[in-house]
């Protein structure tokens, strides 16, 4: 009985047709699966099935040392690996009670915000592709390549960066960051602007997104929404502002919020956040330039990290929302238990509620706008 719904998605019952969408489906990003009961084109019931990318990251973490786990965090939300790295490192630093040098924190801020831009670019591009507009995706990807170049030239990897170390960062920003950033900055604005022109006021785009899968703030909070999806519902909550970690209390930036929590608001939040991130990078880089060139980059960290017995939870604002790491230490060099709180996990579980009564095309739009990354969803 349990098997029948697996590949052939069961048989249609009664008046409804059961449609199996995924896991290999263009809009399912590889590993998601939704079993939808439809009445014509209207979705009566959608049942998401996850776990197709469950790689046992949490179990693996119990068998790796604290440092060895950093590369694994890259592969959680692979659109913005650096945000995960930083989040994990901060959790371990909290566990160890380490104080990270200011310069290292500034570099972290710069890199994390770049990663945020890269993440949002993917989301907006893919949302366009899923709604049938292919071209913005290409415009955004071109600029994303330039961000990748900065990452690559900082630490050798394009996507899975393994950025930073526990207690700081591994290297200073290279000398020509200034030149690269000055070249990249106008291009980023240009890409955002082009996308804006192509999509935002496009009548078809507005028809397809405004009011689609709207969500009330009360529901969003009950379902545990965080990040852009929560802000789209009109709740002003950003961990960078509300529980400032690192140096985020020193920067001035806005937290854009939406009204209806529909696909359009989620899209607009991302578009605006990209611009806010550029603002933050500007400020952080100005502060970085004032630092002494030989300022320390690492706190005093022992070779083998053996934190005291205890358990901590530390959350940061990842591009998708609150990314938290719960680490329980038993005093050895390996974590006793690592629990990752992925942002899109909570968002995606409200999916049946979101798409009920909408059309199949809206289901796809909604899924894209939630930015469900299977890597962190399934871990």
């Amino acid at each position, binding site marked *: 009985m349990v098997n029948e719904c697996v590949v052939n998605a069961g048989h249609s019952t009664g008046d409804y*047709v059961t*449609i*199996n969408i995924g896991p290999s*489906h*263009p*809009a399912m990003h590889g590993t998601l699966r939704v079993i939808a009961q439809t009445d014509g*084109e209207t979705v009566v019931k959608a049942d998401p099935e996850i776990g197709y990318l469950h790689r046992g990251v949490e179990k693996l973490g119990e068998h790796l040392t604290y440092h060895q786990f950093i590369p694994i965090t890259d592969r959680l939300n692979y659109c913005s690996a650096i945000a995960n790295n930083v989040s994990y490192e901060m959790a371990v630093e909290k566990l160890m009670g380490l104080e990270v040098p200011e310069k290292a924190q500034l570099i972290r801020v710069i890199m994390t915000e770049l990663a945020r831009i890269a993440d949002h670019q993917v989301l907006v591009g893919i949302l*366009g*592709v*899923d*709604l*049938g*507009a*292919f*071209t913005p995706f*290409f*415009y955004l990807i*071109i600029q994303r390549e330039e961000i990748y170049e900065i990452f690559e030239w900082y630490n050798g990897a394009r996507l899975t960066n393994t950025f930073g170390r526990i207690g700081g960062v591994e290297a200073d920003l290279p000398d020509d960051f200034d030149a690269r950033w000055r070249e990249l900055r106008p291009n980023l604005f240009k890409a955002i602007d082009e996308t804006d022109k*192509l*999509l935002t006021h*496009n009548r*078809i*785009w507005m*028809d*397809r997104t405004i009011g689609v899968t709207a969500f009330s703030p009360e529901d969003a909070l009950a379902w545990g929404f965080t990040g852009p999806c929560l802000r789209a519902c009109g709740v002003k909550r950003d961990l960078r502002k509300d529980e400032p970690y690192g140096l985020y209390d020193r920067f001035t930036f806005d937290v854009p919020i939406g009204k209806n929590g529909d696909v359009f608001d989620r899209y607009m939040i991302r578009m605006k956040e990209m611009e806010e991130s550029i603002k933050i990078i500007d400020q952080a880089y100005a502060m970085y330039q004032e630092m002494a060139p030989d300022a320390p980059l690492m706190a005093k960290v022992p070779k083998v990290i053996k934190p005291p017995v205890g358990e901590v939870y530390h959350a940061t604002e990842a591009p998708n929302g609150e990314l938290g790491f719960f680490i329980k230490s038993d005093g050895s060099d390996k974590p006793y238990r690592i629990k990752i709180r992925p942002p899109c996990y909570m968002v995606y579980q409200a999916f049946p509620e979101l798409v009920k009564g909408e*059309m*199949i*095309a*809206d289901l*796809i739009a909604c899924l894209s706008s939630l930015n469900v990354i299977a890597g962190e969803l399934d871990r």
Partner: protein
Amino acid sequence: MNDWVIAIIKVVFIWVWTLLVAVVMTWVERRGAAMIQDRLGPNRAGPFGLFQPLADGIKLFTKEDIIPANANRILFILGPILFSLPAFSAYAVVPFGDKIVIAGKEIILQVSDVNVGFLYVVALGSMAVYGVIVGGWASNNKFSILGGLRSTAQLISYEVPWGLALLAAALVYGTFSLREISIAQQGTFLGFLPNWGIFRQPLGFLLFIVAAYAEANRVPFDLPEAESEIVAGYHTEYGSMRLGLYLFGEYVNLCTLSALMVTLYFGSWHLPYLNMEAFLGPISYGIASFLVFFLKVSFFLWLFVWVRWTVPRFRYDQVMGLGWKSLIPLALANLFVTALAIQLTV
């Protein structure tokens, strides 16, 4: 006997020409998309990748031919043929130039000048939906059937404004023959505009072009094969050359629709303010009229590509809403106003 030879030459010419344009269109589409998207596009097969469609064709021909186990075999085979044949046949009545005089014999550049060519085109246009629905149904796949259903609903809905827009044009020209319509577009309108259909029927043209995009299943109306929603729509289960026929039929369809647009609204082979017949020899005039026609068609073909890579796609209910709530009332109003104007002026 001589007439027979000429007719056969014309048929072969138009077939080859349509095939060639459809083949080149696949190349234009890919390179055009690449140009719009800041890429290069296929450039390895032949010069500028011009032989890319050929490579695709060879590959599709030599690929394993799969008919799914649960599919309806006969209909599955019939689907692509039903889809691509009407597209070819519709071309028979579209004039692709004025006339050419060779050895004292006047040859009309049109396969056959049917006096109800108009109705013929409309009738064949609605035939294409059978290819889609038959293919979608025969595949026995839920995505295919969804695609087929979407296509049927869409084509039926847009047939109405399409037909009404055509009807208004027919009222203006007072004929159903596409050749006579073409000839009627010579000269100027109101003294300063070219005497083209678009100036006599601006709303009609808009209705026609929107409906044509829907008829051709092109973005923003590509719901029957909406990639991100229903995988590949009605041809999800089709591979090898059967898929090739579907893809190919689509481009032939585009050709026909563009030719129709030019014939009805853009003065067919006429250049604005210029009577080519007056200063060109009989043969060169024939060739020139064909070239002018072809250039105009190319523009509309390119427009199809251009639009495809610019706008997102509609949702199903929005397509229906647009068709029934906006286009049909507008088309009816257009028809009424046209009829009134003709009544008053005559």
